[in-house]
């Protein structure tokens, strides 16, 4: 493990987040987790979508591809397939990752590339000023749901387990130490790893506040006998909401190969390092012969 200091990740761009925003502790935890794991900024590529949370990589010193709304995961997959030596981390919000990018979310889960997906879930649309999101609780009142939402909220934890994700976790922006631990575990996990972060939006979400989460969350690590590798137990934990909300690694499947580990072409090493003509020069004429 190389020696990496937190200052290497120090960004220069001024934040546009509101004072007290849950994104601040998330940013700190992401940096701390990378430092703890001894991963240097140039080894990391982060992708993000659009939204308050998706600005997170701007506020670090790191390689970043800031894509469009909902599209962080496929860009990340392309990067990982081109060079699987990168540590790839995608940052999305809830509308970004579970709404407009919902299809990519499902398919990335089942595809299992070695990507860490941090979803900053504030249960509301912040950047567009307070409309309901796919994770807004039923009955939640916003500018576009003045009578309260009448759609059942997406359960990202259950959805990820059902879709075949190999690492499904939740943490809370109000518990920075826990957050750093979970993010570090997610980065270390070989395969797709979801970190759903309960992130208070201090401006637009007056329901799901720091206090609201604090009253309900409990650490799974402290729950005796809980085994994240038990898919059935994980499924039951995934259903808990409102009264008690579990945080920690909810589900982990160990040993399933990642997508890139199974790709024949990548057995020769990262695609970007395979060069251009050397390997194919002698064989390429065969392609023409085969068409005679």
């Amino acid at each position, binding site marked *: 493990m190389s020696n990496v200091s937190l200052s290497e990740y120090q960004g220069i761009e001024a934040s546009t987040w509101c004072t007290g925003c849950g994104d601040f502790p998330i940013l700190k935890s992401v940096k701390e987790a990378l430092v703890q794991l001894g991963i240097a900024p140039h080894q990391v590529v982060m992708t993000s979508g659009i939204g308050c949370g998706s600005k997170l990589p701007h506020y670090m*010193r790191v390689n970043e591809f*800031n894509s469009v709304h909902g599209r962080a995961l*496929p860009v990340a997959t*392309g990067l990982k397939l*081109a060079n699987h030596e990168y540590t790839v981390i995608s940052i999305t919000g809830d509308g970004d990752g579970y709404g407009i990018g919902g299809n990519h979310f499902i398919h990335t889960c089942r595809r299992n590339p070695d990507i860490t997906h941090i979803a900053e879930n504030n249960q509301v649309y912040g950047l567009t000023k307070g409309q309901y999101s796919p994770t807004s609780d039923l009955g939640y009142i916003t500018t576009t749901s003045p009578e309260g939402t009448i759609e059942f909220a997406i359960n990202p934890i259950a959805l990820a387990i059902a879709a075949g994700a190999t690492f499904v976790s939740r943490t809370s922006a109000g518990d920075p130490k826990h957050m750093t631990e979970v993010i570090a575990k997610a980065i270390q996990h070989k395969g797709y790893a979801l970190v759903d972060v309960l992130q208070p939006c201090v401006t637009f979400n007056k329901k799901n506040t720091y206090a609201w989460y604090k009253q309900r969350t409990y650490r799974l690590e402290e729950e005796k006998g809980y085994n994240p590798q038990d898919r059935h137990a994980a499924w039951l934990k995934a259903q808990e909401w409102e009264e008690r909300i579990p945080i920690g690694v909810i589900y982990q499947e160990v040993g399933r190969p990642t997508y890139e580990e199974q790709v024949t*072409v990548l057995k020769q090493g990262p695609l970007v390092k395979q060069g251009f003509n050397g390997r194919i020069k002698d064989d390429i004429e065969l392609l*023409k*012969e085969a068409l005679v």
Partner: protein
Amino acid sequence: MATFDVTIKIGGEAGQGVESSGFGFVKALSRGGVFVFGNSDYMSRIRGGYNFYQIRASSEPLFCHADELHLLLALNDQAISEHKSELVKGGAVIYNEDLKFDADSLRAKGILLFPMPLVKLAYEAGADRIMANTAAIGAAVGVTEYDFERIADVIRENFKRKGEKVVENNLKLARQAYDIAKEKYAKSFKFKLNSISGAPKRMVLHGNQAICLGAIGGGCRFMAGYPMTPASTIIEYLSANGNQFGVLTKQTEDEISAILMTIGAAHAGVRSMTATSGGGFSLMVEALGMAGCTETPIVVVEAQRAGPSTGLPTRTEQGDLEFVLRASQGEFPRIILAPGNLEQCFEAGWRAFNLAEKYQCPVIVLTDLYQSAAVRTVELKAFDFTKIPIERGTLLDEAALDKLASDYKRHAITESGISPRAIPGHPKAVFMTTSDEHDEQGHIIEDAATRNKMMEKRMRKLDLAVEEMSAPQVYGSKKAEITLIGWGSTYGALRETVDRLNKEGMQANMLHFMDLWPFPEEKVTPLLKEAKYMVCVEGNYTGQLANMIRTYTGIQVDKRVLRYDGRPVSPKFILEHLKDEVRLHV
């Protein structure tokens, strides 16, 4: 040796083996040194419906199909009703003896009828009814007096995996049909096919395969796509050959994901492409703009089919030129190539990557269903892998990055507009890019001055790119009375029309556009000014190239010949629309 130019159609229901037997015949002809053009016409369904495969075989090089039909192999009655009007005098129909149709009306038009016991022979040979197509091909070889051994070779090859017994049955069947047809009908049928000795070895391939070969040769190592007719054969071909040539293919959940993965892989320094049709391209539009804003070099193949919306899913059109030119919000540089023949498809396959990396922008290769699927014979040497240049533009290698003195700026403002490009992974070049407007470092900005500088920097790249765009290809008479103008897949039809007009004593030429954007107006304008009478031929309703010419040169073409029925433009179609011009000349 006698010259020949013969068109044969095999028509029947989907599932009757129309396409596979037709393509088998094409191979048998090509291996006999004959120039062949083959295209299929099918409905958007797996079973039933009416399909045909069309083979044009000639002693001279071919670039397109022809509508004049010489021999029809009718596997059902619909084949006759569909094509009887296309048969030339002295042409013939081979059909199963029990087929009911109005034979007298055909005879009255001088068409020969060759009833054959196709189904009976199939049963007798131990094959089933479906193998009547093999018998029909055997009979066609018989009446045209082509070399039976050529078709026998293809039968052996095609049925090998089904076992020796099946090979034997099919060979016996083809031979019997050949013998009967030759003995009974060959004498009366005047259109003959001869193998040509001493011809060079030729490939038989379609436009999508040619694009793939160019792409592989050009260093494409990543291709993501979502299946959509007529682009699917690109991901299929690259998947089949990817392991051998180091191309990673990825079928995605949708076209949005396909272009995004392509962008991700390209950002990581791998030559990457995606391929789709208009409907899938519609989904890619947002990400296309992102590639423009982030200056990511990607290649997108857009194989057009007839729209709008689902349109005619298995039919051709050139309806998307204006769409790909303007797709996505805002203004950003893009390059559009519209190859018009297999050689140009091959060229576009590798050149697109050079252009994408040199100008750090999306490159769209615009083709269509007709060109994607139609096969033609091409000499092996026409695709020369050793001559493909790999130009990666301002890409910084590790040594260059090691020497970097100051912070790397991904979007550095330069005179050419092209910024030195790093790929993530080097300690001295930790950088970001974003779909938001940004400064040189890739940080999001909103101030007017930086915005202007960045817009101007990006758009400036086109000033340089346009110099690389080729003038339209001129073919035919130097001092032409009539100039046919077109782009993309109409190349063959235009070229042959020019030949036919010149043969009739009219001076004609063609201007064919492959490089469409940035529009090479300085090269185009003098050519147009020389033209006396301009006819723009396009496979769309509005004349999108004609509009483009008017917009960028101020020149209005004299006439537009437009086809939007989903069928490919042919020489006969063009000539029918030039009757007045030809009459005036005479």
